[in-house]
């Protein structure tokens, strides 16, 4: 698989920097201002979503889980829509319904949305993948989930069929080793999530989740395989959850030396860029996020009519 070309690398770095700037801002925002619900920080895990989404086409279907913002940003959603939504403003992606748990969707760029009952992404992605098989449209569906969510029954129900039918589906696991504070080893019989792939007769790929390029290459391969009609792939990115399960989590369950070998995905990707473009791109991203945040703060709040919006579509 070819590595991403310099222009794509820069785009990846830009999007990762935007997601990182949102992370930093949200930690402050949730501490200092009113926030509806909980923010689940994604700092440290950005290479997985940024690498994976860079490997997808614009109209491939992404079903993501709700940690951080890098999946939506990686697929091309504007920071303003995300920040507006996190602040619950009318200029956000859901037009006034937002808060802690992200439900950002833009079907036109394949951001299909998030289900906050974890494990719901599997059959949803199975559905879009089956649609692609029926329509022969060459699209790939990606279901993103955390390691703890591999225990859901829908994981199995969907993959059994996807493997049997050779659906163009990628299961993408962000394995940060933690289910809130529970270690994966206490609740899973396998060392790796990718080990489950054997049972379905599909490739199970383990990839360095701190390196966006490694993730990109693995996802590219899986997407190509899916498009060739060879069926699903399970990718497991080993990632690091840098902060608490939610912003404000005291994290008493973490060890003191846990971050001794920590490699920040932003640094890992920056080192792959040419010259000193990293610094410039990071500054641009930060300015972009700051402006979007100011705009969100100033944007209007929803009124009660939002409660009754979007329940039924009228033709």
């Amino acid at each position, binding site marked *: 698989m070819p590595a991403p070309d310099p222009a794509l690398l820069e785009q990846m770095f830009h999007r990762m920097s935007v997601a990182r700037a949102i992370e930093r801002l949200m930690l402050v925002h949730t501490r200092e201002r009113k926030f509806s619900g909980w923010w689940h920080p994604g700092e440290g895990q950005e290479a997985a979503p940024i690498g994976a989404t860079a490997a997808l086409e614009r109209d491939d*279907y992404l*079903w993501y889980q709700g940690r951080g913002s890098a999946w939506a940003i990686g697929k091309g959603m504007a920071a303003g829509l995300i920040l507006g939504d996190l602040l619950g403003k009318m200029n956000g*992606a*859901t*037009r*006034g*319904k937002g808060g802690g748990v992200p*439900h*950002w*969707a833009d*079907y036109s760029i394949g951001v*299909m*949305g998030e*289900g906050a*009952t974890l494990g*719901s992404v*599997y*059959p*949803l*992605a*199975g*559905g*879009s*993948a*089956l*649609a692609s*098989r*029926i*329509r022969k449209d060459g699209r790939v*569906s990606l279901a993103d989930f955390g390691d703890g969510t591999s225990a859901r*029954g*829908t994981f199995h*129900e*969907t993959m*059994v*069929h996807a493997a049997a039918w050779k659906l163009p589906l990628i299961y993408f696991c962000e394995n940060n080793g933690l289910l809130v504070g529970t270690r994966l080893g206490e609740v899973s019989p396998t060392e790796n999530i990718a080990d489950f792939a054997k049972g379905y007769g599909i490739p199970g790929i383990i990839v360095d989740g701190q390196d966006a390029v490694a993730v990109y290459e693995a996802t590219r391969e899986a997407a190509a395989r899916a498009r060739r009609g060879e069926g699903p792939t399970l990718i497991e990115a080993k990632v690091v959850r840098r902060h608490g399960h939610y912003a404000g989590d005291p994290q008493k369950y973490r060890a003191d030396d846990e971050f001794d070998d920590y490699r920040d995905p932003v640094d890992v990707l920056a080192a792959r860029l040419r010259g000193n473009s990293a610094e410039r791109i990071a500054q641009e991203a930060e300015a972009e996020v700051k402006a979007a945040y100011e705009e969100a703060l100033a944007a209007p709040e929803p009124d009660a009519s939002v409660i009754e*919006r*979007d*329940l*039924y*579509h*009228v*033709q």
Partner: protein
Amino acid sequence: MSSEVMGYNAAMGLGLVEEMRRDAEIFVLGQGVATGGWFGAEKGLASEFGLDRVIDCGISEAFEAGLAAGAAIVGMKPVINMGFGDFALIAGDEIYHKLAKWRYMHGLDVPMTAVIIFPIGTMGGAGPEHSSCTEVLGMHFPGLKVVVPSTPEDAKGLMKAALREPNPVLFHSVQGLGWARGEVSTDPEFIVPIGKAATPRQGRDLTIVTYGSMVPRSLEAADTLAGEGIDCEVIDLRSLVPLDWDCVLESVSRTNRAMVVHEAAKTAGPGAEIAAQIQERIFFDLEAPVLRVGGKDFPLPQHSDLEAMSIPSVDAIADTARRLFAI
């Protein structure tokens, strides 16, 4: 208009076939659908439309319903035969969260067509886990349309309406009516609009609001009562969401007496909501409290004789009507 006598399931299947012919985005998935379906409604589908659009799956109800949501979100029109209404609970997240709320949660006002077929009710010994009437769940969780046809013609017409509806529909086919036969329009443009009740019998003395398996029983009870000088109006709701309140309230404000009859368990069944709204909205038109006749608040027995005693009989409906008339 031309019509033909056919069975309830066959009519439902005909509705499906006609819509599949006109819309290539419709596909059918379920356990055994490619081999004709457990209840025969899917007979012949696979040979006409091929295995790309008529898809058998394993025992995986959450997957089936979640797949319907995913496919509908990307614009296809899935029809899923869930086998039994009871299995709604296995696929609860997929039906009552994903299908019902996806667009709402994401702030999207877009079409989303999906038909989930839930065969409901008793059929003679299917037991407590294969006989439940689960339609009330669709009334309680917002975001879905809910229909329960009681005649072959409505089964066809509502299936066609559901496939042209830009919102997910829970289509409850009545297991006890599977072999009921009746005249069915063969006009491919014939549909029964969702949200419109029918009044199969007009009367002056009291209104029986019912749907599904209890429509034929209520009509039979009304025939008996007519001989006693009690003139019943019978409303077949056909849709529970949206519910045709105009029809119900207009009727009751004329007859001044109402009772609700359904096979579903009485406590917190659809009748509880219907009775409550009638008295909330037209209390001063009423001569008597709104009465309810429903299934017993017990699991449905495996034994078919006991099962028959667990759901409203024609006699029980008639007795309640007499009581209501006498108040």
